[in-house]
């Protein structure tokens, strides 16, 4: 089995697996990282979004081979309760979810946005999150939370 090397949340990682297997399957099945969620398996809902380098990408239809030598960040690498990312703080402050199943993917789309545009407007936030589906109708709260996080980051 060929081996694929990449950095996972900053850690050099080697995986021996069929290179066509989806990244999501490797993250959840091999590394027990359950932050990225399975939603559709076709890149249509964004529940499994991770950052590859600085882009938010659906892990469910990203084959393992395509991430060789790249930087993968999952929600687990974004922040922790002890050291939260501004987005995580803002989602709590805004109570920006209902069931929360889509949130880990949405946080990754938002984190990628803030990397390329630290001061987005609400239209840009909505564009950045347009590939993420939320069924509970928490969209407006999430947009507010991303704007709040952007404000905090800028203030720091």
């Amino acid at each position: 089995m060929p081996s694929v090397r990449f950095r996972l949340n900053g850690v050099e990682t080697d995986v021996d697996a069929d290179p066509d297997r989806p990244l999501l399957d490797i993250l959840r099945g091999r590394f027990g990282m359950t932050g990225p969620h399975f939603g559709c398996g076709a890149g249509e809902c964004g529940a499994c979004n991770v950052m590859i380098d600085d882009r938010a990408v659906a892990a469910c239809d990203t084959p393992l081979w395509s991430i060789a030598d790249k930087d993968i960040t999952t929600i687990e690498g974004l922040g922790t309760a002890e050291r939260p990312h501004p987005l995580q703080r803002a989602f709590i402050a805004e109570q920006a979810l209902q069931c929360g199943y889509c949130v880990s993917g949405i946080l990754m789309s938002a984190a990628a946005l803030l990397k390329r545009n630290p001061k987005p407007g609400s239209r840009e936030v909505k564009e950045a999150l347009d590939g993420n589906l939320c069924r509970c109708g928490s969209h407006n709260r999430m947009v507010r939370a991303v704007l709040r996080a952007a404000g905090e980051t800028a203030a720091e």
Partner: protein
Amino acid sequence: MNQPAPPPSPPKLPVNLAANPKLSSWLKFSPQGQVTVSPGKVEIGQGIVTALAQIAADELDIDIGRVQMIRASTAVSPNEGVTSGSLSVQQSGRAMRHACAEVRQIFLQLASERLGVDIASLGVEDGTISGPGNVTTSYWELAEEVSLDRDATPDVKPKPATRRALAGNSVQRIDIPDKVFARARFIHDWTLPEMLHGRVLRPQNARANLAGLKDGNVRTIAGFVAVVRDGSFAGVVCETEHGAEAALQALRKGAVWADGAPLPDERDLAAFLKAEPSETTVVDKRIASSPGAKKRTLQRQYTRPYIAHASIAPSCAMAQWNSDRVHVWTHSQGVYLLRTDLALVLKLPAENIIVEHMEGAGCYGHNAADDVALDAVLLAKAAGGRPVRVQWSREGEMSDAPFGAAMTIEIEADLDAEGEITDWRHSIWSNGHVARPGRAAQPALLAGFELENPFPRMISTNPPQANGGGGDRNAVPLYDFPSWQIESHRLTTMPIRTSALRTLGAQGNVFAIESFLDEIAAERGEDPVAFRLRHLTDERAKDVIRAAAKRARWKPEKQPGIGYGIAFARYKNTGAYCAVVAEIEGADDIRVRKLTLVVDVGEAINPDGVINQIEGGAIQATSWVLKERVRFDRQRITSTNWTEYPILRFSEVPEVEVELIQRSEMDPVGAGEAAHGPVSAAIANAVFDALGVRVRHLPITRESIIAAMEQAP
């Protein structure tokens, strides 16, 4: 001054407490300063666990941080039936409040004896009980001496609203940190020791039978454990999820399907619904004391399509056998009800089955949560005592789970010479709206219909009007018309599987009633707000309408391409009041710009939680109205992914403004379903305002607008 008081009726226990009177089944104290609270209701993203923690902390006078909420399980929790119908705060909240009030009283009684002071002089602050002369003890000190293994009594009175510290405040939800820090909370993210993975094979064509099954190379797949087959039910078990997926693909290649049952013509749902055999009930009838003189009759027909629950997570469950006992982990809305059905299918006593809740994604009603639980139980039989986790596919979730029932609604209004309504007749044709587990002599679970010795496919029914009705929910007008007759025709065949979707029939009925009223008001040249107010007597109803109109500056000046519409309902005619003003734009593709809602839920325990539910309901209803429709051909459901079944996206979501009318002296009612009906009608009325077209068949799309233009009036 001294009015004779009416004779007091003897106090009664709240219903859910009367059904589960043992106090220790609701809460327990630890000497370490914690209270564990175990309601029978479950978290489905609506924030109920936080609201119940608030109620408990308030009544006990403890910091909410001391409350640990236990997930519902048939092993330990009170049986509170199903978490549905916007009833959890009402039912579980009242029971919890009463149970905690009584427990507080029991502790105070013991403290009074220990401290030798009068009970009336004792106070509680964060669990510390103190009295005159600085005598103190605490719940935690007394915990081991107090037995709560006793039944609740009706005499204890909970605190008055004015003395509650937490209720009425927007306490942060206790489940949210786990969810943003990705700590495993969802069933999907849980792993049990030695856990295996299963997948179930289901046909593409509706109700096809499995005529043949060749294993092929399934057994050569790494980690293969078992193929399970019982009649048309078939599945695989593997060591890994990846292996289970591969095995399922291999199994599918070797499957031969036969028969199947034809589906209706999706282009003419009204004709289908009206032609099927049905059972007719007169839901309500009002006879005029002096009938008005009818000048003419207006008749309108409305339809709503089948709507998918379309949860973001495919349904998931785990099951583990230990000889003739099975433990099930599920995101079902009713652990006891699911247990009842599992017992029927497995022909086991219910005591042999433990059903434990774990959170899933929002379900919005009866989705596949219960079905996948039986799938896991059946596959786990082949796992030699190891637990098996089963997860459905996106395609399965969108085609095999029950849908919200399609409805055709016909309303006739007799008008007198002045255009006033003299009689109102409302008829509904629809499948039943509920086929939940645990309520019938036969199971409601999908695999149960597929076994070698199958159970008959359950035909959905409707709850009685006393429980809010089903297809007829919100069909009885809230307006003071002189006379009416409301009829419901429930189909007795069910080619497309239906069960509870948020609001049951209320979304369809409110859409129809509020659209038609708007049309009658417009014909009269009367303002739709004034028209509604003139036909209402309930002041709380008038208050939400007036407040919504005021907040939206009704009616804003006409601008080209922009329309405004208003609508109102009181959910189930007995629950939350909600009025909505919708602002839309567009000529063919409609975009909802803004929704302004005013809501009265009585006492709002957690105001931000209520607002979150209303916002979410408003956005979900916008999605239903503008986009959603289950698609099918004559053989199978075809809307099996997000391209074929689109829902509202971030770029399409309207601004939503919610105002709460807080009435802390009134019993709390749920908020989760109040917005859907009024939002649906308000959008349709705004479309008329902008385009002069009445769209009576949902969803409101380019196609339905064109069809409506061609079919005017």
